[in-house]
């Protein structure tokens, strides 16, 4: 069907309305936190702080517990993500390519953790960890954070492996590659960008995971977000929490931007079967 009247670009008022609403909802709090981080004096009823400055950055970064928490978080997150990749990627490949009894049930059970109210699950796990002397230990926190990564690290890689063209793998066998070599040279590079996206998402997710880290880690293990919460709860000075928030926001924002450039939105979409 053809229309003779040229299509006019009309203002999409509902679209603009929702976009504005979304922007306010997302950017608004960020803006407030960001402002607080660079504020020295801000008293009611002023809309804009009376005095900006970096005083609280110096104070926050001068604290030993902040640096300890940052390093600990880095170790925890790296360890947790690596462990998760080691467990989940082979499992994802198996789910995607092999057929074995109980496959669907097992696949579902990996995701079932996300169907429960998370805190209830964590308390139950904490009770078990208490018996195993894992409470307050590094590996206890790593294990609890594994739970949170399963969703990304199973679901997305399964879809990524399923999306790899089987003919490509057969063509590689045909020119003389062993099954292992095919996996290494064809399957993994083909699924790679999507899997990288999953690893990144789980890295960022683990870094900010708070409930599990707090419940299992306290009091010995204090990760960065746990420290931030204690600052926000226990300190009269708002700026400490704000500075830490901005500090934590920057690396993950850079990581996500980097991922978007390298991987492209398509890989995320493919990961979810899009």
């Amino acid at each position: 069907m053809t229309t003779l009247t040229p299509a006019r670009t009309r203002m999409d008022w509902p679209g603009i309305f929702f976009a504005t609403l979304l922007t306010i909802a997302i950017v608004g709090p960020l803006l407030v936190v960001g402002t607080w981080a660079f504020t020295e004096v801000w008293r009611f009823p002023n809309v804009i702080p009376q005095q900006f400055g970096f005083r609280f950055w110096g104070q926050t970064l001068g604290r030993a517990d902040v640096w300890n928490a940052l390093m600990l978080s880095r170790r925890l997150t790296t360890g947790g993500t690596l462990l998760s990749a080691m467990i989940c990627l082979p499992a994802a490949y198996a789910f995607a390519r092999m057929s074995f009894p109980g496959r669907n049930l097992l696949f579902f059970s990996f995701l079932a953790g996300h169907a429960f109210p998370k805190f209830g699950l964590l308390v139950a796990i904490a009770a078990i960890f208490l018996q195993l002397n894992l409470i307050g230990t590094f590996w206890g926190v790593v294990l609890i954070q594994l739970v949170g990564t399963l969703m990304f690290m199973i679901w997305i890689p399964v879809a990524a492996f399923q999306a790899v063209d089987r003919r490509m793998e057969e063509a590689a066998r045909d020119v003389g590659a062993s099954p292992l070599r095919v996996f290494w040279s064809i399957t993994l590079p083909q699924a790679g960008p999507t899997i990288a996206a999953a690893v990144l998402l789980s890295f960022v997710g683990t870094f900010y995971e708070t409930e599990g880290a707090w419940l299992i880690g306290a009091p010995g293990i204090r990760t960065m977000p746990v420290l931030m919460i204690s600052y926000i709860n226990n300190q009269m000075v708002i700026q400490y929490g704000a500075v830490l928030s901005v500090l934590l926001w920057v690396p993950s924002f850079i990581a996500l931007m980097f991922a978007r450039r390298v991987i492209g939105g398509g890989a995320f979409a493919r990961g979810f079967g899009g």
Partner: protein
Amino acid sequence: MSVLHIREVSKTFSGGTKAVDSFSLDVADGELVCLLGPSGSGKSTLLRMVGGFEQPTGGQITIDGEDVTHLPPERRPTGMVFQSHALWSHMNVFKNLAFGLKLRRMPAAVIREKVEAVLELVGLSGYGERATGQLSGGQQQRVALARSLVLEPKILLLDEPFASLDQHLRERLREEVRDIQQRLGITTLFVTHGQDEALSMADRIVVMANGKTEQIDRPNIIYREPQTPFVAGFIGTMNLIEGAVSDGNFMRADFTLPLPVADGPAILAVRPEAIDLTISETPEAHVHRVTDYGTHGLVDLDLADGTRIKSMVAHPDMFRTGQGVQISPRAVTAYRDNRPIYRS
């Protein structure tokens, strides 16, 4: 010097479907054999068994006398070109072609030399650094062919390699592939469902249906002397008229033809170009439609019971819809029990 022997190979899938049923074929050195059949005839499954991607449930496959029946694909001297070309999109053209050579631990200089030679062979010199996604469909299929050829396989396997290309490109590529195949003298098994492709490229054609061989012959024999009604109907345009013979006459509705065979059922096969029509007051059929193709015309006829017959005529303007005609076939083949009983 490579010969392929397929001995009574069968394939039954786990669901119980019999894809290939006791199939045998010998392919001589340097020969190009086409496996031709409708989809589901088992031709692709057969090719995949030769390539090692499917395990036969019975029978034996040998290449130059060596039993390869149970070897994995990477240990077979076969090279396969896939319908979807299956190029590795994360590698450029050069890397696609070099991958198999690298696996064979060849020195880099030799690899470069071989890749450049094969690129020239398929007419893609200088395309080595291109990403596969930058190539057209025809170029991608040429790279896929080069990827197999560069390893100098004993047997080249082509699985409907031109199916995803447009008609014009398909015709050009099949000439090119045939040229290259003859120049290299490489023994080739080619799967297609296009009879044009088979007739124009093959030294011999295997017509397959339901996992079995219907006929193995040279293209002109397949066309002129089809051994079963299926082959007759599958290759070219053919009128297949089911009827009965009594007292030396074949009969279907008002159409009769003297046929010197014993009484009983028979299937008559007549090419449209082998039918003469005469306008008649005592018609055997009526004209349903006349189509003028410029060089010739095609007349669709209906027998009294609705059986459709196609006839090629030199002067289509002589015929009109509804007209009654007499049918005089010049050359017929009659089949009974799936084999020819009479040929004129």
